[in-house]
């Protein structure tokens, strides 16, 4: 039996590591509800993905290391990260031998190929976005059930290689392969959404049962052996049990009382003081790639006027937004589209008191209402009716109220409307709903600037009349789009040059101001007293395999 000590325990930033390494026991997790299907190729919810990373593997994986190091893809089921060939159009992976699914079967080349076909067969949400660049994906998107990806993903059983052919070079190809939807599942996994029945995986754990309204039980995968501790280390706890059903408030109380070791949901704001006073050692604060931003519809008045959008950017009190999110410890003011920690980030803030595009500041200081009012006056849109749509959650409503005050002080007849959280995000995307301005949050799928730029403002992501149109502002600028494309292309070969281009694109877009970035969020994790070795990865929060319980 291998000890998990193979992966050196690392001290996570924030709280303390308690106790000594301990293998065994049950890790008890709580969340207010399950998070959809247990099919890892379909589920797109961070709650499920966080658990999935200790159950499944792809050819590559984001390194299971604490902090920044976890942004980087490393070889997982593949022997090594291959060098791109054909100028970034071809990748050849060698599959590691001797790895077994929790069903006992060894992972073979055909499992890998089938898994990629399955992405399209089950209409995986990222099928188009992430894997549309594979040769043959077009046909698969049109006719999922008969997807072969012929010529796109080619397996060779004899030398255990899998060759990918892309239609165009992709700097983020490894990121996409590391993404959970590209997990390798047994080839005989049914080609439909599996619902509550999780398929076998290769990670240290396997899902024994799942009921999205009651809970989930996870136990060790008996066939697991560590092959690359960086990609998939062994776990400490013998069992992981998820219980659903408590409200966020109740989750905090229960975790404080030691009934659970970790709560998935965000700690409600009003409990922060109590946590700081009584349980500081059990709280861990970590950066995540998530932000709040105020989206303006560039096709609807008054926000079809660039001056108005800039005015909003000048007027918005980012500090107040930060306060509503829990103060400086819980989030940082965000002035630009690329948050810190990503390539392309540069300290840069044109929209603050005493700054403009000619003289940008490095950080946000205060709103510039006078300037904003002047811009509004110039735009001639004063007095128009503006409706701000926010999701009906306490934090967003508080932010919305303040933003409404801001819009009113700019001279607009402003309303704030909170709509059901469940549909808020699809609702604001659809141009038919004529949403003028809306508040939303956004989380990155992986640590690349494109996830904040191309995804949210790329022309290809604007689909009028569709519920799926993440370019909510409807922004599409030829020069900016050209920069996006160039940055993506350059990044394939030269990350550094690419970063500079991303930064340039960000600055250009900021001037057009299709949105007003507000804050970058942090994740505040509350754990039980007995949980040790808190271990945070940037993308997937606490890594369940690396914490121990006494």
């Amino acid at each position, binding site marked *: 039996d291998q000890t998990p000590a193979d992966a050196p325990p690392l001290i996570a930033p924030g709280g303390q590591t308690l106790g000594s390494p301990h293998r065994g026991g049950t890790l008890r997790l709580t969340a207010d509800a399950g998070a959809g299907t247990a099919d890892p190729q379909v589920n797109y919810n961070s709650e499920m993905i966080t658990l999935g990373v200790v159950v499944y593997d792809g050819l590559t994986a984001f390194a299971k290391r604490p902090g920044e190091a976890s942004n980087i893809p490393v070889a997982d089921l593949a022997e090594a990260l291959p060098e791109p060939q054909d100028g970034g159009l071809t990748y050849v992976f060698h599959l590691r031998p001797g790895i077994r699914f929790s069903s006992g079967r060894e992972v073979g080349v055909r499992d890998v190929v089938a898994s990629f076909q399955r992405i399209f067969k089950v209409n995986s949400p990222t099928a188009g976005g992430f894997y549309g660049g594979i040769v043959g994906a077009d046909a698969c998107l049109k006719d999922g059930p008969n997807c072969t990806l012929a010529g796109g993903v080619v397996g060779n059983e004899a030398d255990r290689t899998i060759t990918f052919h892309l239609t165009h070079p992709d700097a983020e190809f490894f990121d996409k392969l590391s993404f959970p939807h590209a997990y390798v599942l047994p080839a005989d996994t049914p080609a439909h959404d599996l619902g509550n029945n999780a398929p076998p995986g290769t990670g240290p754990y396997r899902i024994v049962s799942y009921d999205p309204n009651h809970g989930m039980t996870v136990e060790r995968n008996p066939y697991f052996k560590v092959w690359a501790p960086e990609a998939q280390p062994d776990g400490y706890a013998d069992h992981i049990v998820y219980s659903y059903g408590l409200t966020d408030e109740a989750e905090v109380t229960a975790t404080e009382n030691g009934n659970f070791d970790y709560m998935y949901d965000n700690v409600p704001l*009003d409990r922060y003081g109590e946590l700081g006073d009584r349980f*500081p050692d059990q709280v861990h604060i970590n950066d995540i790639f998530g932000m709040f931003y105020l989206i303006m519809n560039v096709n609807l008045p008054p926000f079809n006027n660039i001056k108005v959008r800039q005015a909003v950017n000048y007027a918005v009190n980012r500090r*107040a937004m930060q306060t509503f999110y829990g103060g400086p410890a819980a989030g940082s003011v965000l002035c630009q589209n690329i948050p810190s920690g990503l390539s392309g980030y540069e300290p840069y803030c044109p929209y603050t008191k005493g700054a403009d595009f000619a003289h940008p500041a490095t950080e946000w200081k205060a709103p510039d209402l006078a300037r904003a009012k002047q811009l509004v006056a110039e735009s001639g849109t004063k007095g128009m009716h503006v409706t701000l749509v926010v999701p009906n959650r306490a934090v967003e409503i508080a932010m919305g109220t303040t933003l409404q005050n801001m819009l009113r002080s700019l001279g607009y007849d402003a309303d*704030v409307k909170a709509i059901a959280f469940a549909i808020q995000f699809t609702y604001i995307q659809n141009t038919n709903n004529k949403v003028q301005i809306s508040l939303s949050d956004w989380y990155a799928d992986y640590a690349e600037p494109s996830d904040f730029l191309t995804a949210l403002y790329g022309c290809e992501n604007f689909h009028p009349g569709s519920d799926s149109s993440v370019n909510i502002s409807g922004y599409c600028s030829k020069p900016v789009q050209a920069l996006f494309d160039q940055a993506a292309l350059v990044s394939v070969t030269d990350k550094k040059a690419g970063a500079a281009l991303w930064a340039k694109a960000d600055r250009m877009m900021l001037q057009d101001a299709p949105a007003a970035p507000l804050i970058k969020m942090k994740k505040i994790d509350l754990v039980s007293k007995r949980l040790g070795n808190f271990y945070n990865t940037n993308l997937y929060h606490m890594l369940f395999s690396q914490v121990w319980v006494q």
Partner: protein
Amino acid sequence: MPSAVIAAGVLVLLVAASLAAPLYASRVAHTEPFVSDVAATVTLHGEEIPVMQPNNNRLHLGLTPIGPTWHADADLLGADSQGRDVAARLLYGGRNSLLISSCAAILCIVMAAVVGICAGFFGGIVDMLLSRLMDIMWAIPVYLFAISLSIVTVSQGLQLGPFVIRSDNLILPIAIIALVYVPYAARPIRGRVMSLRQAEFVLAARCLGVSRTRILMRDILPNVSTTLIVLAPLVMALALLAESALSFLSIGVQAPAASWGTIIEDGQGLIYTRPMVAIAPGLAIVVTVLALNILGDGLRDALDVKETSRRRT
């Protein structure tokens, strides 16, 4: 009926206090209860203190609104998570809550009276259809309706002929609450009308050649009025409780405006640190509902006298 008189007094007091909300906010508390201001300060014992108090613990996480100071000019009942004076919002909230619930109660009683009287008086197929309709209404989840309506009204508003109802229009919660409790109120009315229909004085009226409509208006309706009057405070109490849920679903009272329901919802998130934010409007609801019920009981007793003065033989 001294208890009923006291209850009526309490209600009058509540209404008066709510009406005086602007006075309280501007003259006494010197606060602007609809503007969130996280940087605001209040003066207490000559000392300036921030309304949103930073947590000076190791983590410096979050801000906690000031708790009850018990000084009318400085956040009497404390502040909410947006730094707004809870006491002032409570008074403003009373206006909306009382308005919505009383209008809803009246509307509900009127609709229930129409339905109950038609079902009870005409009987037969009319009764069957109306009763089943009531069953359907009773079983429909209100909140589904509310969520849908809130979404419909958010952007374009609800188009009703020439009228556009926006989501902050108080007609919406009033109408929804009224509709929801129609089956509840219509049932006893129907029963009462069914027994009245058999009453000898209705037979007497028919014998006099009085038309059905006139019998309905002159003989049935006045006798149902007792039932209606007794039901009204009960429905109003229920409406008060329902209003809170609807406000949460963005129907009716919209942020930053307040109602007791929305304040409870705000307070729900503060219940562990500043329970007063939720407890105060909760108590306001309890007191109002209590007073309404006592008033209802008193009314019933008072109105019942006439019916029972008849000596039992």
